[in-house]
Structures are given as structure tokens and as C-alpha cells.
């Protein structure tokens, strides 16, 4: 899923400083799963902002809504009748949400309530880790099921660098050296040979290096499926 962290109350309060009526818009997709932008988090943010503004003597009228997803125009369109009832909207979705909203409702202001961080999963309750860099050319199977693009600080493809020490990455002591893990896994499986070959250059044009990406599924576009 896409993982995000909520912005600080201070930052969000500054965004809506001049507003008196806003909408906080949650999303039932990834940000609900990573507990940052679902109904519960939207309610907590609304209560917190109301408390802060009442304390400041400038009460803020807040409505809340949670869309099925903010990354599909059909769900974003559900706001069409009410979106302009507000002076501003705080989107609690990933970075896709405020953009789909801004593209559809050009006269409204949409503030991002979260910082979108990475594609990952929960390794335990409350802890999420990056697992995918969205490079567009997946080769996870070549590395024992562990992605060195997303999980190696240098995205190395031919083994660990000199900064790998005792299985830990020099960039961050909390990060395991994924190449250490890949090599250990391959050794345990007796498949170390798989890592010995020299790989050709990786095609980075499918990653961000090729500019903004687009995925077209002709069969869907044509309505065949």
C-alpha cells in the first residue's frame, strides 16, 4: 500500500489559519489501512483543530467526509454538489488525492494533510517499511524475493557496498543491509551461483527517470473487459 504520515497539527493549523469553514476529506484506501487518513484519523484531526481554534478564539467550522477512494474520478465526482460550500479542503489521502480533487474542482483549495512517504507494508502494528520503489521493471525474483532497488540505499544490483557492516546499512543503523539478507538467503538455499552473473544495465526509463508515467490498458479503454 501507499504509506503516509500525517502532517503536524502546527503545519495544518497554519494552512487553514484564515479559514472559518473547511472540509476534512478522508480516503478509504491505503491511508485507512496505514491509519493516517481514514474516518478515525479524520475525526481526531477535526477534534484537534476545533480545540486549537476555540482556544485561539477563532472557532473553525469543520465537516468531515471519507471517500471510497480519492484516486478515482467517479468517487471524487461525488463531492461536486458540496465541495464549494467550504473555504478550503484538507485531503487526508496520499498525494494523488489533492491532485485529483484540484483537477476536478478548479475553484477550490485542497491542502495535503499528510506527507506521502513510500510503498510498503506493516511489519508489526504501527510500523511500516518500504518494500517497493515502483521502478517499473520488477526483478524481485532475481534477488531471492528481496528488492535491492527499494531496500538498498544505493539500489545496487551486484552485491553489498563497503558500507555494509554486520548486516546493517551504514546509512541508517535501523536499516538492514538488504544485500546481506539476499546473500544469506541464497547461501542457505544453496543458490549463491544465481548472484554471480553480471547483469545488464537496468532500464531506468520505466522508473521516475523517464518522467511521469502512464499505464494504459487497451482492453479496458476499449471496454473489452
Amino acid at each position: 500500500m501507499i504509506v503516509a504520515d500525517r502532517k503536524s497539527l502546527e503545519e495544518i493549523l497554519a494552512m487553514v489559519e484564515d479559514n472559518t469553514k473547511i472540509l476534512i476529506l478522508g480516503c478509504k484506501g491505503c491511508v485507512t489501512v496505514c491509519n493516517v487518513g481514514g474516518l478515525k484519523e479524520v475525526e481526531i484531526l477535526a477534534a484537534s483543530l476545533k480545540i486549537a481554534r476555540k482556544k485561539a478564539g477563532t472557532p473553525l467550522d469543520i465537516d468531515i467526509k471519507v471517500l471510497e477512494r480519492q484516486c478515482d474520478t467517479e468517487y471524487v465526482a461525488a463531492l461536486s454538489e458540496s465541495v464549494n460550500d467550504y473555504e478550503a479542503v484538507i485531503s487526508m489521502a496520499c498525494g494523488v488525492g489533492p491532485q485529483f480533487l484540484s483537477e476536478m474542482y478548479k475553484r477550490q483549495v485542497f491542502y495535503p494533510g499528510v506527507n506521502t512517504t513510500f510503498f510498503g507494508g506493516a511489519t508489526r502494528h504501527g510500523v511500516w517499511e518500504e518494500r517497493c520503489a515502483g521502478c517499473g521493471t520488477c526483478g524481485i525474483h532475481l534477488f531471492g524475493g528481496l528488492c535491492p532497488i527499494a531496500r538498498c540505499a544505493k539500489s545496487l544490483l551486484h552485491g553489498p557496498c563497503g558500507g555494509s557492516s554486520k548486516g546493517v546499512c551504514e546509512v541508517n543503523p535501523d536499516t538492514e543491509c538488504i544485500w546481506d539478507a539476499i546473500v544469506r538467503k541464497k547461501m542457505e538455499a544453496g543458490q549463491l551461483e544465481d548472484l554471480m552473473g553480471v547483469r545488464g544495465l537496468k532500464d531506468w526509463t520505466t522508473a521516475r527517470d523517464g518522467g511521469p508515467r502512464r499505464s494504459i490498458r487497451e482492453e479496458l479503454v476499449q471496454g473489452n473487459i
Partner: protein
Amino acid sequence: MRLTYSADIKIIQVPCTGRVDILHLLNAIEDGADGVYVAGCLEGECHYIEGNLKARRKVTHVKKILTELGIEPERVEMYNLSSAQGARFAEIANEMADRIRALGPTPVQNHTAA
């Protein structure tokens, strides 16, 4: 027992403090409560195993939010006592009332500035 305790306390009953949510506490503060405390069972004696422990964690989280908002976190508190400790209940009620009285009225004003 007929104990007396501060008349400033409004009691809201819940089946278990595990039912108390962050939003209940925040909404009370938002609606102008000067303070809120949760009186749960003794730790280790929750009929539902860990309802009171969950409540304590929620109270801790609300304290963190209040701190971020510049409001005294002492306005929210967690207490543990058994249903047989009537005297302790009254003591806690008075203790909390005294604490809030010392802090003064809530800075969360429920009226529009003139």
C-alpha cells in the same frame, strides 16, 4: 458509605474503560470540559483482560495531542481503582477537582470572540 465528593464531577458510565476512545476525551475537551479523567479497574484485574490498559494508552495519546495544542496535559488523567474502593473514588474525584481548579478554566472557549 455516603461519602461526599466534589459536585463538579459529571460521571459518564461505560461498561469497561476499554470502551473509552480518544474521540470521547477530545470531544469532551472540545465541548468545554475543564478536565476529563478515566476511572478504570485496577491494572491486572480487568474483566476483559486489558480494557483498562488500553484506556491508559488512549489517555496518554490524548495528553500528547493536548500538549501539541498548547493545552495542559494534566487536564486528562487515568486512575485505577476497584469497585470496592468507594473512599478512593471520592478521594480521586476531589484530587482531580483540586487539580483542575488549580489549572483554572479550560482555554477552549465555546463562544465566538466578540
